[in-house]
């Protein structure tokens, strides 16, 4: 299928930049050595990994690159951070604090730990999806061995007050893990400013390859490995290094740092234009998330009397890629836990759609979406008895009736 797609799902994944692919190719061809080998063919690979580690360190404000370990992706980084810290501190306590809007990699890891003896507090968020740092403070007990908070939410884009939470964690001497999958490479990040001890990264969210990620681990953090085996990554993460992926991640990090300002300006302009037009042209639509503290590329909208699934397919048939809530497996029609946590009623949550824009989107593409989207909504609403009742004045709009 070599169609032209208008791709507006960058929070799900991004297209690797050509420079990234170029950086990977040598390691899939002639440079096939094992980075742990003593001979020169291996040393060449070691060098590529070390360069990538420095490139990533610069992007996230890490002084000592050795505090970064490469992994098989963001979910692995998150699993490692949570389970690794939990297992290493078993003697200290078995309590973890997190929030109700975390990615399922955090949620399900915590749920798993609950089945084997840990206790987890899921702190709620406000109507905009922001967690109140004081609530994190209140949740921390003597038993708490880890706080895990996402930097920005993948579904609604809300940016969390991580710096303040970081201060609290330092004061209480509890390690803080930040799931930064949605922010690394997009907004400036410094692990010092965030005050975190662990930070999870996934390369494919910022124009790098899939299947590679990293975990920042502050020196001195008590953590067990998740994957046991050889002495790779300074005995922290076993497995022969995915050199091509790691080299790609490094170049993606370098490019992200270079283009960050420019990309943000461009993408924010497109996102604001799209969002404004839809809210103007589509009746009974509302914005989900924090209008102020929000990722510049994300727009999550609830469209009343429409099923999100139908909307996605209708848009796909016009060559437009978007998603509803978080990318979930087909067959799952449960409304998102994030929208539930911010108090979106079930019937609205089902009609929610997420636009997440990226650096390659153009004004022409956004104009096309602004033209097509209201038409698709209108056709689908033609099928909805709820909508015809609303039009006849027999039923009130959920959105119109609620002050945002």
């Amino acid at each position: 299928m070599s169609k032209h797609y208008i791709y507006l799902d960058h929070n799900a994944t991004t297209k690797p930049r050509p420079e990234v692919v170029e950086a990977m190719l040598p390691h899939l061809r002639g440079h096939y050595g094992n980075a742990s080998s003593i001979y020169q063919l291996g040393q060449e690979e070691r060098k590529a990994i070390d360069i990538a580690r420095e490139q990533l360190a610069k992007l996230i404000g890490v002084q000592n690159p050795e505090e970064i370990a490469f992994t098989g992706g963001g979910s692995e980084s998150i699993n490692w951070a949570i389970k690794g810290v939990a297992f290493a501190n078993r003697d200290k306590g078995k309590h973890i604090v997190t929030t109700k809007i975390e990615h399922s990699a955090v949620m399900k890891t915590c749920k798993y730990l609950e089945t084997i003896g840990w206790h987890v507090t899921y702190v709620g968020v406000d109507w905009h999806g922001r967690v109140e740092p004081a609530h994190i403070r209140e949740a921390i007990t003597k038993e708490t061995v880890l706080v895990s908070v996402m930097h920005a939410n993948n579904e609604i884009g809300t940016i969390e007050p991580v710096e303040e939470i970081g201060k609290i964690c330092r004061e209480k001497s509890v390690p803080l893990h930040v799931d930064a999958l949605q922010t690394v490479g997009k907004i400036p990040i410094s692990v010092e400013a965030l005050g975190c001890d662990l930070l999870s990264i996934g390369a494919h969210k910022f124009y790098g390859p899939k299947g590679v990620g990293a975990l920042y681990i502050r020196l001195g953090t008590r953590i067990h490995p998740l994957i046991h085996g050889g002495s790779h990554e300074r005995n922290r993460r076993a497995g022969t290094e995915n050199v091509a992926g790691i080299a790609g991640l490094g170049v993606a990090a370098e490019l992200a740092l270079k283009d960050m300002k420019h990309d943000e300006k461009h993408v924010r302009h497109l996102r604001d234009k799209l969002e404004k037009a839809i809210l103007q042209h589509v009746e009974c639509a509302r914005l989900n998330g924090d209008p102020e503290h929000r990722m510049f590329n994300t727009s999550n909208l609830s469209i009343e009397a429409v099923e999100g699934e139908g909307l996605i397919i209708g848009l796909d048939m016009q060559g437009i890629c978007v998603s509803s809530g978080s990318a979930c497996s087909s067959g799952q029609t449960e409304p998102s836990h994030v929208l539930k946590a911010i108090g979106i009623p079930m019937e609205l949550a089902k009609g929610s759609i997420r636009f997440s824009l990226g650096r390659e989107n153009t004004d022409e593409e956004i104009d096309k979406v602004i033209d097509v989207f209201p038409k698709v909504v209108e056709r689908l609403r033609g099928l909805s008895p709820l909508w015809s009742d609303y039009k006849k004045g027999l039923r009130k709009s959920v959105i119109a009736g609620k002050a945002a």
Partner: protein
Amino acid sequence: MKTKVVVAMSGGVDSSVTAALLKEQGYEVYGVTMRLSDRQETEGRKFGGCCGSKDFYDARSVAQTLDIPHYSFDYVEKFRGSVIGYFKDSYMKGETPNPCIACNQNVKFDALLNHATALGADYLATGHYARIERHDGPPTTTSGVTTKTSSPRVSGGDPSYLLKKAMDPSKDQSYVLYGLRQKELSKLLFPLGELTKTEVREIARRYSLRTADKPDSYEICFVPNEDYRQFISEEVPAEQRPSGSIRHVDGRVLGQHKGLPYYTIGQREGLGISVGKPLYVTKLDTETNTLVVGDKEDVLSTSMAVRDVTWVSGVAPKLPCDVSVKIRSRHVESPATLFSSSFPAGAGGESMDPRQGHSGMTTMKVVFDQPQSAITPGQAAVFYNGDIVLGGGVIDHV
């Protein structure tokens, strides 16, 4: 812009080939697999038909082979109410349902068709063996049927559509499509109507489709182990299907039945009584909870009342009218005359299809030229003129 077609892909060979043919003909094809049931298969509890997850993966594999997009649409709730619920209710009122027709009328050619067009498709296609013929001009009342008094209509204006049997009589599925009207037919494609099953399998092999040699499924997809009685036992509380007496048409009580939903008209096996010659179920009397049995000739009837009648043309023919009538999917249609009739809906009760009433006449009396065996309330009666489906309804009583 290419014409967009949504193909309902069940994961069987027929719908696979439907998608392949349409793609070959230059359509922009989108595959859709309906999620109809969330029933879990367990050890000793297998579902046939098109509900298994295996079938979903087969459909996806075929879509990948053909390089077309593939989606899954969720109709679990719709199917539970309008098909599974109907199926159960039908047995509970002493009838024998046809769930495939209910699925066609409420899910495939209603919900799915509406969604497909709302999403921007020009047509919906399925792998049914039947033909749609487009004619210019409005539908004639009876589509050329010889009526005893009517005169032909004048043509002109919008096109009209005839629903016809498949070329291959052994595969013809027009019986389960009788509920289609002009509105639906104008949006439907049945590319297999001109083909034989052998040809369909050859095409599937030519395209290397995974489903090329997949056996046909005849089972009801939500009934475990192909046994509707197990479904009744699982779904209906025992007190709602009490046992009662088995009575011969001559009045003799011969034994006890296990609950009326476990029996169908014409059934001979499994009655649990022995009187030296074969006995057949002739009636399920829900009022007295009696299973009536009799000899072979007691199952014969010459006339029946049909409810919820619809016409493919949208217009009823002038009555009386000579037609052929098919009274179950494997029945060879038989000559009969339709008469107007208004009877109080008996066991039938509420109409299954709330969209009725456009012709102003939804009940009908059918008199066969020859007596028919085991006319079964709840089954569809479909009226034909040669190859053409005129319409049909639900058998109400004999």
